């Protein structure tokens, strides 16, 4: 299911040829970047925090994602593609982070180490979503957030995560059913309390 990456570099995706990916050209100027950052950073931070379950790590990875974004040659197509590219960098950084300490695949990381302890916000939706997310696998959190919070299609998620679109469809179906059951249970428990 997982596509193999023969380059060995996960953090900066190869969207162009090696010759074209030289860091000679800036993707945008300072003002344009400031605008893009204001529009994209909250969403990216929420994604990283929700998937990693660690707000401090999310901050670090978000900064690193933007730095790599600025140092790389971005794909054409405007802000939509920039944003997708940014999520791809962030996803690869998350994967690198999970692989680094124990050389384990994302699915092999124990749930207790990745329990979503996010304290970004304390709204009602978080009170229901947090316990449910904590019981999901990291890969499931990733797919659910990209599909339902960011509204990405299966093809776009495939580009971001490196998984096949067919695999994403199945994984997402299972993850959605699982979290829906947890959300209903959580909502029922809250009403009883």
């Amino acid at each position, binding site marked *: 299911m997982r596509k193999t990456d023969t380059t060995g570099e996960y953090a900066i995706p190869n969207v162009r040829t090696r010759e074209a990916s030289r860091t000679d050209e800036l993707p945008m100027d300072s003002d344009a970047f400031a605008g893009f950052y204001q529009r994209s950073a909250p969403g990216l931070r929420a994604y990283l*925090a929700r998937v990693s379950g660690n707000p401090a790590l999310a*901050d670090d990875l978000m900064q690193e994602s933007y730095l790599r974004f600025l140092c790389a040659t971005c794909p054409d197509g405007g802000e939509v593609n920039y944003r997708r590219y940014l999520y791809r960098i962030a996803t690869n950084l998350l994967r690198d982070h999970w692989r680094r300490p124990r050389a384990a695949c994302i699915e092999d990381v124990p749930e207790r180490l990745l329990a979503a302890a996010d304290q*970004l916000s304390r*709204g009602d*939706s978080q009170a229901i979503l947090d316990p449910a997310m904590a019981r999901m696998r990291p890969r499931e959190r990733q797919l659910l957030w990209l599909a339902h919070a960011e*509204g990405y299609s299966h093809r776009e998620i495939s580009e971001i995560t490196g998984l096949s679109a067919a695999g994403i469809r*199945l994984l997402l179906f299972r993850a959605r059913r699982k979290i*829906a059951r947890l959300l209903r249970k959580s909502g029922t428990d809250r009403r009883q309390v």
Partner: protein
Amino acid sequence: MTFRACSYEKELTQALKDGHWPEGCGPELRAHVDACGNCSDLVLVTQTFRLARSESEHATPCGSPSLLWWRSQLRRRYAATERVSRPITVAETFAWIATVVVGIVFMASQYRHGLHWASWWSELVPLRILHVLSIAPVGSAQVDPNLLLFISGFGVLLLFSALVVYLASEKF
């Protein structure tokens, strides 16, 4: 758990994405969602995640973009410097390899000739060297070929060593 796609899923996903659910959707779709487990899951999960995302966006400020811009400039500059200094690194490597090769060849040649270091050092009196190199007539029978080899090898070794030290000091 079996994977079974619902025919309304695409329409429902689009309605959720566009914010048309539920008011902007027809009674048929709404009735279907009430009856279909997959679609009701889709509605519940999408609405919960959208709300969570919306609340997360307003929760914490994300820092200054100008600081990130400045850091990216530094990183790009460092990368450019690295790219420019790559030929120097190659030259350094070549100098190191050449020095090692010359040293090995020199030592091997001396080992083959018997390593008479004590007698050579006694001949390395400045006047003796002067005599050998300039005063003595060419083709003189007194010139020791081992001594000439030693002097030339030692000179080359010194030259390369100096080059290596210079390049290394330039780098650090």
